[in-house]
């Protein structure tokens, strides 16, 4: 079973490359059961959005 630590790596890599089918499945099942990793994934995606906003507005 995927550990939370390994899941964080997959969630970061998902922002940089398409995950393989196997990786997506393992992550999917892990996230169903893990509220902490679901929060982590939202936060990773937020950091991506914030970086884009920073790049575009340079506040």
């Amino acid at each position, binding site marked *: 079973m995927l*550990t*939370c*630590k*390994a899941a*964080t*790596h997959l969630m*970061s*890599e998902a*922002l*940089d*490359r398409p995950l393989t089918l196997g990786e997506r499945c393992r992550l999917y099942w892990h996230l169903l059961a893990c*509220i*902490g*990793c679901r*929060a*982590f994934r*939202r*936060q*990773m995606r*937020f*950091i*991506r*959005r*914030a*970086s*884009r*906003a*920073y*790049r*575009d507005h*340079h*506040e």
Partner: protein
Amino acid sequence: MDDARQAGPLIELRPQMLKFARLQLQDDAAAEDAVQEALGAALEGAAKFAGRSALKTWVFTILRHKIVDILRERGRTVQISALEKDEAQMDAAFEALFQANAHWHPASHPGNWDDPEEALAQRQFWRIFEACLEVLPANTARVFMMREFLGFETDEICRNLAISTSHCHVILHRARAGLRRCLDSGWFRPEARTC
């Protein structure tokens, strides 16, 4: 005529441009050059831009391209060395979030961030965001900014810095995990501050 009218607003953008360029080039002289060139190029076409925000977007796009060119050229001369001390410290802080079985430690379980979109509209949030970027180790920040601010694909970052793809992914993960923790304690959940 038109050029002169546009020079004012462009000059006002200069400090912001310099800050952005310095952050990514880590070299004041190179940052000055990049900003100077971007302003020169911008001035030639500035008359086409009616609105101030259109002008700003455009001049920053030019600057971004200049920074990309400089980093591409610099490529091989930059050494991403073995793990630096500050990177090892970040990794240790990340490891400490987990129990021996590699699942979240109850005390460091990622919590919900309230209304993160609202944060994007707040000036104070961006100060913290910048402060969090500035405390990233230099190599970590360089790779993160190439990816997120300059739009490099991971493959090109690896080739440019002569590191393996998996190393590149490790560095990006380190950067994001570090920013996450910094934003968590600095903005979203200051009460949960752990350091």
